[in-house]
C-alpha cells in the first residue's frame, strides 16, 4: 500500500493504539509477573515456627544455664544441664502466665511472679502453679539445637 495514501491521522491513531496496547500488555504483564516471580523465591527464613525451631547453636549456652527462645507464638526455655544434656520446655508459667527462668543455684525452674518452682521435667513441685510445663523434644542437627513439639502418641 502506498504510504502517502494513508492519512496522517490514521497513522498516528495506529501508533497510539500500538503504544497503548503494546505498552499496556507489557506493563500489565510485568505488574502481574513481578510479584509472582518474587513469590517463587523462597524467603531466607525457611522454618514456619509451628512444629520445630532452631533454638540456639551449640556453644551458645554454658553448662547449668538456661535461655529463652521463641517457639511459635510463645516463649520456650532451653536448658543445658551440667551433664551436657539439653532440655526444652514451655516458658509460660501455668499459674498466671509469667515467663519462667532457669535457676542455676537451685537447678530448678523458677517463676519470679509468685515463687512457683518446677523440676527439670517441668513438673510443678512447689508454689502456686497448678500444672506442669509442657516439655519439648530436643535434637542436635550439626551445630544447631532444634526444638520440636512432642509427637502425639
Amino acid at each position, binding site marked *: 500500500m502506498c504510504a502517502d495514501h494513508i492519512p496522517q491521522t490514521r497513522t498516528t491513531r495506529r501508533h*497510539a*493504539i500500538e503504544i*497503548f496496547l503494546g505498552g*499496556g500488555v507489557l506493563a*500489565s504483564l510485568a*505488574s502481574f509477573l513481578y510479584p509472582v516471580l518474587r513469590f517463587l523465591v523462597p524467603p531466607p527464613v525457611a522454618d514456619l515456627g509451628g512444629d520445630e525451631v532452631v533454638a540456639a547453636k551449640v556453644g551458645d549456652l554454658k553448662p547449668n544455664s538456661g535461655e529463652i527462645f521463641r517457639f511459635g507464638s510463645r516463649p520456650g526455655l532451653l536448658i543445658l544441664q551440667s551433664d551436657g544434656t539439653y532440655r526444652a520446655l514451655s516458658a509460660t508459667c501455668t499459674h498466671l502466665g509469667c*515467663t519462667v527462668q532457669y535457676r542455676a543455684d537451685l537447678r530448678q525452674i523458677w517463676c*519470679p511472679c*509468685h*515463687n512457683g518452682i518446677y523440676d527439670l521435667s517441668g513438673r510443678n513441685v512447689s508454689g502456686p502453679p497448678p500444672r506442669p510445663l509442657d516439655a519439648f523434644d530436643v535434637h542436635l542437627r550439626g551445630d544447631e539445637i532444634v526444638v520440636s513439639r512432642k509427637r502425639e502418641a
Partner: protein
Amino acid sequence: MAMLRNKVCGFAAPRSTVLAGVVALAACLGYGQAVNSCVDCHSTMPDPLGVTSDKFSQDIHAQKGLTCTSCHGGDASSYDPTVAMGSKAGFKGKIDRRKIPDLCGSCHSNPNLMRQYDPSLRTDQLAEYHTSVHGKRLAAGDTKVAVCIDCHSVHDIRPPSDPRSTVNPVNVATTCSRCHADASYMKQYGIPTDQFAKYNTSVHHDALAVRGDLSAPTCTTCHGNHGAVPPGVDKVQNVCANCHVFQAQMYAKSTHSKVFQEKGLPGCVVCHTNHGIHMPSDAMLGTGPTGVCMRCHAPGDHCDRARVSILSNLTQLDGTIKQADDALRVAESSGMEVSEARLSQDQARDALTKARVTIHSFQAALVDQDIQVGMKIAAANLKAGKDAMIERNHRRIGLGLCFVAIAIMLVGLWLYIRKLES
C-alpha cells in the same frame, strides 16, 4: 427362706445354727449398716437433737466406720433410752465445749491411731490449737471462742479437699466470718469485724473464690489454722514473702525495712493494707487519694524526688507500651501481619511488671534499669507498627502502578476494538 429353714430343720441341726443363719441373713440384708438406735431415734427429732443418717453418711468419720458412740459413748444396739444413753454404756451426752478439743484430740493427736486411717494426716493440730488465741482463751474459760466443731462442722465433717467442706480453702473466709464478722458477738474483744468484708474486695479473694486459683491466700494462709494467731507486726513481711519473694527480698534490703521495724510499723501492710489488698497501681506513687508515699514523706525532700522519678519512668514505659499496642492494632486492622511484634509486647509488659516489683527496693536507679529494658522493646515494637503502616502504603503505591498499567491496557483494547469495528 422357708426352704432353707425346712432344709435345716430337716437335717435336725442345732437351733443355734438356725439363729446364726437368720442373724447372718439379717446382717446381709442390712449390709454395711449395723443397728444404730441413735440415728433411728435422732433422725426423727428436730434440731438441735436431730441428726439424719443422710447427713451423717456424708461425714468422713462415718465413711471410715466410726459412729455416734465413738464420740458420744452409749449403746447403739439398744432402743431402750436408759440403756442406750446410760452411764453404764459410758454415755457422754452433748460434749461440753471446753472438752471438745481434747475429745477430737484423743484420736487426732495419736499418730499410732491415725496411721491406721491415713498415715499422711498431721497429728499436731491439738498442740497447735493450744498455742492459738482461741486455744488460750478457751483454757482461760472463754467458751465463745472457736473449737474444732465451729470450723469443721459436726456430724457432716468433710475433708478439706472436698469443695463442700467448711474448711476447704474457698470456704475458709466464710467460716471464719461467722464469728469474726459478727459485730455484736465480737463486741467484748475490741478487735475489728470488717476483715471479711474487706477481704471480699481484695485481689486474693478474686483469685481464690472467683478464678478458682487454690494457691491464693485466705485467712488461714496468713494467720494459721489450728494455731491461729495474727502474725506479729514485725513478721508480716515474712508471711507475704512466701509468695511475693522478689518484693520481700528487695524490701528487706531497703531503707524502709529497718525504719518500719524500729517504728513498730507492720511492713507490707503500711502501704498495701492487710485484708482489703487491692491490685496495686502506679497511682500509689502519686499524690492523689491512693498515694502512699506522701503520708510520711515531705514534699520536695530526697525521697519525694525519687518518687517522682520512679513514677514518671513507669508512666513513660506504660505509655510507650500502649502507643505500640495502638500502632500494632491499627496495622493489624489494615491487614498487616505483626504477630512477632505483638509477642514481643509481652516481653515489654514483663519488663514493666519487673520494674514495678523493683519499686520495693526504693531505689530509683534500680527501677530505671528495668524501665530502660522495657523501653527498648516497646520502642522497637512501636517502630514495627509504624513500619507495617509504611509497608501498607507501599502496597497501595504498587497497586496504583498496577492500576495505571491496567488502565493503559484497557484504553489500548478499547481503541483497538473501535478501530476494528470502524
